[in-house]
């Protein structure tokens, strides 16, 4: 895999920001889009735009084929058994909320437990807090070890026969940790709980096999994996989805509508009320084609190399504190840090003046920030278009930041 050649396929990366070539290190927030994805969305609006599933006319058939074709691409991408198990949503947040609103509310009651971890994104915390409040269930947290990883002994100690839902992220958006989902799912199943996986930071970077993981639900977003914003996926095991009620009611999701009663379409459409995100799905399909042509194994290996290199280079900066595991083993391309007494916002502003885009703040993970005893942190996140040169520039930028603030002080 040649990251420099891949970079050429991303038009946005070919620009100067504040007089410097753009160094984009914020793919954890959203990835950039290759020309193939931009063109697929444009082609759809240019030639094929029409509503789906009403296919009497030609454009309707093209739009439907494009939309359902994207569903099949997603199925293959995560190795699901059937397209009935692939529901298009607005993104990871909507996907998790759907599980909470439909499955959890119907199946949980007082005395039951929901288990999540300290490293979850707000979108894998708040839906469960709400479910707990409404059903009387208890929300429990898996503790983290010193280096930010989850120990299976803690998983075994936390999950009980009262646990009905376990929901954990595949990759932490702050620590970069890759969690042992397959093992956690096994423990969850031993106690009769369902396993929900937040794959927002996982799907863009790792090969996912939902059958091998044996997860019950898995959620991810298109925009973090080279696709458009506004499209996401909820995978669910068929026998669970079949017994769940829809969350949104209206057009597209019905079988028969009477005056006082209605029936729903079969899977997956009963969960897709309203005109779906057609262009988004087609764009996501193009993104999957793009990623698979390069190969997820290649992408993972590239990011692993970048993470190892970043850990090494950033450690050279005086006053650097890196959070999460100290080595690149089981780490995705995310490195979160703080630089002595320079606040992360100030770090981000100084780097921006050098054309380097990083994220600063709580990363939608306030409970984790509390665990780290930080009010905010800086985060560099990498993707297939980043190079070691980008990390060199980041390192130089951080050294300059340090110098700049020591001058001002």
């Amino acid at each position: 895999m040649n990251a420099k050649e891949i970079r050429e396929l991303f038009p946005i990366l070919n620009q100067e920001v504040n007089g410097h070539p753009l160094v984009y290190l914020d793919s954890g927030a959203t990835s950039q889009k290759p020309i193939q994805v931009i063109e697929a969305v444009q082609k759809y609006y240019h030639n094929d735009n029409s509503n789906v599933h009403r296919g009497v006319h030609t454009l309707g058939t093209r739009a439907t084929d494009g939309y359902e074709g994207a569903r099949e691409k997603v199925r293959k991408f995560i190795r699901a058994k059937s397209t009935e198990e692939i529901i298009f949503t607005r993104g990871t947040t909507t996907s998790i909320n759907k599980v909470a609103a439909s499955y959890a509310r119907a199946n949980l009651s007082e005395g039951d437990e929901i288990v999540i971890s300290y490293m979850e994104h707000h979108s894998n915390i708040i839906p469960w807090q709400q479910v707990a409040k409404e059903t009387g269930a208890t929300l429990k947290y898996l503790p983290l070890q010193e280096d930010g990883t989850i120990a299976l002994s803690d998983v075994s100690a936390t999950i009980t026969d009262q646990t009905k839902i376990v929901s954990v992220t595949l990759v932490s958006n702050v620590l970069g940790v890759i969690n042992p989902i397959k093992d956690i799912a096994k423990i969850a199943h031993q106690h009769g709980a369902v396993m929900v996986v937040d794959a927002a930071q996982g799907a863009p970077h790792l090969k996912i096999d939902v059958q091998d993981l044996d997860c019950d639900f898995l959620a991810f977003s298109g925009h973090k994996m080279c696709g458009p914003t506004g499209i996401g996926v909820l995978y669910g095991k068929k026998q669970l989805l079949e017994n769940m009620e829809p969350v949104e009611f209206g057009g597209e999701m019905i079988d028969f509508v009477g005056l006082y009663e209605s029936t729903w379409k079969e899977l997956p459409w009963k969960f897709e009320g309203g005109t779906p995100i057609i262009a988004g799905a087609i764009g996501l399909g193009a993104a999957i084609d793009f990623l698979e042509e390069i190969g997820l194994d290649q992408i993972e290996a590239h990011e692993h190399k970048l993470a190892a290199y970043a850990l090494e280079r950033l450690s050279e900066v005086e006053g650097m504190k890196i959070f999460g595991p100290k080595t690149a083993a089981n780490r995705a391309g995310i490195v979160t840090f703080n630089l002595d007494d320079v606040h992360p916002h100030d770090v981000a502003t100084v780097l921006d003046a050098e054309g380097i885009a990083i994220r600063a703040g709580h990363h939608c993970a306030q409970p984790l920030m509390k665990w780290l005893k930080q009010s905010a942190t800086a985060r560099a996140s990498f993707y297939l278009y980043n190079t070691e040169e980008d990390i060199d520039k980041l390192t130089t930028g951080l050294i300059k930041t340090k110098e700049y603030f020591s001058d001002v002080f």
Partner: protein
Amino acid sequence: MSFNNLDTLYRQVIMDHYKNPRNKGVLEDDSLTVNMNNPTCGDRIQLTLKLEDGKVADAKFEGEGCSISMSSASMMTQAIKGKTKEEAVKLSHIFSDMMLGKDYDDDIDLGDIEALQGVSQFPARIKCATLAWKAMEKGMNEEDTAK
């Protein structure tokens, strides 16, 4: 933009307030307390105000945040002491105009606050600078409705 432009943001007086914050702490007794967060970035301020005869007799702040938010809080508490509520709120409006790059009333001596003018050129940082001022305005409004 280069590091030279950064100097318009990180002026000496700002860094001085950041390093040596004025009025840091919490006022006891029956002072007015306002808590405010910037939910997008995690900055947090607790402002305590003591009002006597319609004037700000004392003001203190506690909080966590970047150099811009904390120095702005320091300058704000310094500026409003001794001012009437109306004057303090007016000052906040002037500050807001300054952040938005609008023409603002320059008859009033803004003192150290003037140094924050450069923030207006960094749109992503304006919310950092206005946090303490928004907290102060909220406190003044609450005081009004409490009456």
